[in-house]
């Protein structure tokens, strides 16, 4: 043949003839994000190949990967050759629009995976040289290849925030810096200013709060209209009183570089409606709750305050509706899952503390110190709105009492607290992991003995218990004994490799549901046909994997994301890998929260079953990619424990 290069003269219409190829590419990420010129560059350099069913496309034995494949039609199965092929977790499928083998091309190494046509398949192929050139040329393509999961997630996030912005009008993100949220220069006064003057200024400036500063503009205190009622009007204080006598001293302060979210969490945890923004001690401005939640009917801070001040359980039950509404708004606004989890945790903690206070007021405060602790998802700070109770008590036995006598005092109180929490929407634990169970209301030594038994013996039941109890966290009461227990058990576990090995073995039974025949393995149960259990099969492999790796390396954090970050910090896994694990975990959480919210809006009972066919393309791909990250965690555990 004389020439394979088409002539550019006359009416060859080179771009026109590429239209079918371009149209295909534009339907799939990341090609849909690429500039037209770059897409055309790519399209012009593609070859189209056919692979009959079962034919190998890539093979680790073929040397460094030399081609980039985009599936045009058909299905491709990835298999990791060294592993047991009976387990569905070791094979997964790629569908049209998906690309491989990116990691091997970037690292200039042979593939680790055999890619095989699962049915008759057409692939577009790009030579490695052209792949490299495209990486340099197109940022979108580069972004996708180098941070695949993260870049897909960015796309989802942009979509959510774009739709939130249109729904609510404007940027409602809590991810902006405080410096950008300050509405006006601060209005201040001196500590010796009389109340009359302060009130006149507040009225003239139409502000709800005044910051009291020294001559160097250092904030000394805050006085609000709310304080006027409780501290001035009701006690009947004269208006010539200096403001310093009624202000709230030592105001909360954050630097201008802090995020709005940090301010919201600080306000909500302390119950203050204002935060000073100060740089090197000097006041820049004031952020109020309204500045952060101006578009929401229910504000985080006022809700926290209302929970903390609820007069009885009935009032707390009513506030439950507001909590749901607030979280719903935040999901719709695209507030990040990690942040939503923190907010839910904060609100649940407020409720639990208030319930304990109210019950103590009703039944009497025990004459000795005890700590209310949370286990499981509450201990990890990973609750959704509807999480079963998992709690217990750690007490210090006073010299004049026996453990049994202490329990006799605590158990009725604990029962009342468990019941009240149930009334507030936190269902009783079906496994009876609750403080009212004598086995969960123990002294330090008793907890030690119980944990030691599990670690030393490691029966299946012990392992299950460990996966719930070992993620404990203080909710109310002194923390020292709890942290002492944590240090003790972390050392004990580290020194008992057999126990970790069994935990590892146990966790590997639960494989991420990547499909052999289709994208995903769906449940065949009659109740939930064609669905994936996002909690059991999606989140649990991450949570279990994080716990095992964290315990093995002496990381004391209980939160899954913190555990992953800790592993990255210690260099146990490369930082980019731990970040990808976080992204994947957070995405599945997001999917689950969205699912719950949709069910609530439809007036249905919430569950964790999602039909992958009903997800859009992007979500399906991210979910698959997320499950692949879970596989990586499991591979790492397999390697560490030679399983």
């Amino acid at each position, binding site marked *: *043949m*004389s*020439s*394979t*290069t*088409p*002539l550019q*003269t*006359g*009416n*060859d*219409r*080179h771009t*026109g*003839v*590429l*239209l*079918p*190829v371009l*149209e*295909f590419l534009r339907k799939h990420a990341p090609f849909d994000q690429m500039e037209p010129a770059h897409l055309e560059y790519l*399209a*012009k*350099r*593609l*070859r*189209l*190949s*056919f*692979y*009959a069913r079962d*034919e190998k496309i890539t093979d680790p034995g073929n040397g460094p990967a030399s081609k980039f494949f985009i599936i045009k*039609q058909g299905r491709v199965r990835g298999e990791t050759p060294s592993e047991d092929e009976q387990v569905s977790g070791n094979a997964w499928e790629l569908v049209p629009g998906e690309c491989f083998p990116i990691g091997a091309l970037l690292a200039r190494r042979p593939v680790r995976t055999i890619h095989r046509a699962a049915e*008759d398949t*057409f692939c*577009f*192929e790009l030579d490695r040289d052209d792949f490299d050139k495209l990486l340099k040329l197109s940022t979108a393509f580069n972004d996708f290849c180098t941070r695949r999961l993260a870049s897909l997630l960015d796309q989802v996030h942009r979509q959510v925030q774009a739709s939130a912005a249109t729904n609510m009008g404007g940027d409602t993100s809590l991810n902006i810096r405080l410096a950008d949220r300050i509405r006006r220069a601060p209005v201040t006064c001196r500590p010796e200013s009389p109340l009359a003057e302060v009130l006149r200024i507040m009225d003239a400036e139409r502000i709800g709060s005044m910051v009291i500063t020294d001559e160097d503009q250092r904030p000394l205190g805050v006085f609000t209209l709310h304080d006027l009622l409780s501290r001035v009007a009701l006690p009947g204080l004269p208006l010539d009183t200096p403001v310093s006598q009624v202000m709230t001293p030592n105001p909360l302060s954050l630097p201008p570089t802090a995020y709005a979210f940090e301010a919201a969490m600080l306000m909500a945890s302390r119950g203050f409606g204002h935060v000073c923004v100060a740089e090197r001690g000097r006041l820049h401005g004031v952020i109020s709750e309204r500045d952060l939640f101006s578009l929401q009917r229910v504000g985080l801070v006022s809700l926290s305050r209302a929970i903390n001040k609820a007069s009885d359980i009935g009032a707390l039950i009513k506030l439950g509706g507001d909590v749901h509404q607030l979280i719903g708004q935040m999901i719709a606004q695209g507030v990040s899952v990690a942040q939503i989890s923190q907010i839910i945790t904060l609100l649940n903690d407020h409720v639990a503390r208030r319930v304990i206070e109210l019950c103590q007021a009703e039944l009497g405060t025990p004459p000795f110190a005890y700590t209310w602790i949370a286990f499981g998802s509450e201990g990890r700070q990973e609750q959704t709105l509807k999480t079963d109770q998992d709690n217990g008590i750690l007490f210090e036995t006073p010299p004049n009492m026996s453990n049994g006598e202490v329990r006799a005092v605590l158990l009725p109180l604990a029962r009342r607290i468990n019941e009240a929490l149930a009334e507030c929407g936190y269902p009783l634990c079906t496994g009876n992991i609750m403080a009212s169970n004598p086995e969960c209301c123990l002294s330090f030594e008793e907890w030690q003995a119980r944990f030691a038994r599990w670690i030393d013996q490691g029966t299946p039941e012990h392992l299950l218990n460990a996966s719930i109890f070992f993620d404990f966290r203080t909710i109310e009461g002194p923390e020292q004994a709890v942290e002492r227990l944590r240090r003790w058990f972390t050392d004990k576990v580290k020194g008992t490799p057999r126990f970790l090995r069994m935990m590892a073995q146990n966790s590997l039974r639960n494989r991420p549901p990547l499909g052999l025949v289709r994208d995903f393995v769906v449940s065949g149960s009659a109740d939930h046909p064609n669905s994936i259990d996002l909690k059991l099969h999606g989140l649990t492999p991450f949570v279990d994997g994080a716990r095992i790796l964290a315990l093995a390396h002496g990381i004391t954090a209980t939160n899954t994301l913190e555990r992953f970050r800790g592993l990255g910090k210690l260099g146990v896994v490369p930082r980019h890998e731990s970040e990808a694990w976080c992204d994947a975990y957070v995405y599945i959480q997001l999917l689950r929260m969205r699912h719950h919210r949709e069910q609530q809006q439809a007036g249905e009972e919430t569950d964790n079953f999602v039909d992958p066919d009903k997800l859009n393309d992007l979500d399906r791909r991210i979910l698959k990619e997320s499950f692949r990250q879970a596989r990586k965690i499991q591979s790492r555990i397999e390697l560490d424990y030679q399983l």
Partner: protein
Amino acid sequence: MSFLASLFRPAPVLEDAIEERVSHWHTLPTPSAHTPLDRARFVVIDVETTGLDMHSDELLSVGLVPAGPRSVEIDGLAEIVLRHERARVDKDNLVIHGITPTESASGTEVAEALVSVLEHIGKSWLVAFHADFDRVMLTRAFKRHLGLKLKNPFLDLAWLLPALYPDQAGLRSLDEWLGHFGIAAPARHRASGDALVTAELLLIALSEARRQGRTDLRGLAGLADTQARLDRMSAH
């Protein structure tokens, strides 16, 4: 033009530049008759015409794409539209190929276009679906405008496919075969789009031929011929 007149039409007079390119084509080596299948080179081709009459209708455009034994080279995908000042407009047909008279009028000058086609195809095996039509239309145009006889061997997928897939003898048209293999054809009836999907069918056919242990290109063409003859016999 009468049939007789067309027989005795004098050879066309070509511009020097065109003449030179045609002579270059003549010097290209003819691929061996016994090329093994896994070294074969093809150009998949599809023509769009003013109508379906092989004697009087005119060539409007040629779509083509080069292919090896295992892949199609997208960078060689091309479509060449021939210039026709007074292109006969057959409305029914216009609906099919979508090439408007305006587009025809702004196409490449016919001799220039055809020599460009010639350079794309070289002396490769040509592959088409119902190749007789493409062969006749191209041969006639080359003869008339370039004064050369097209001798490239043709492989006809319309006969090769049923020969390789005897169980699918019920499938006849290009669309039926595309449907059978689930191949989407987003630009069907554009010459280049049809060439591309035809090329996809070629890859499937070659893969199946390999699976059946066929290694010889000529044997494959023979298989298609036999199938064509069988079909004609059963029609009589």
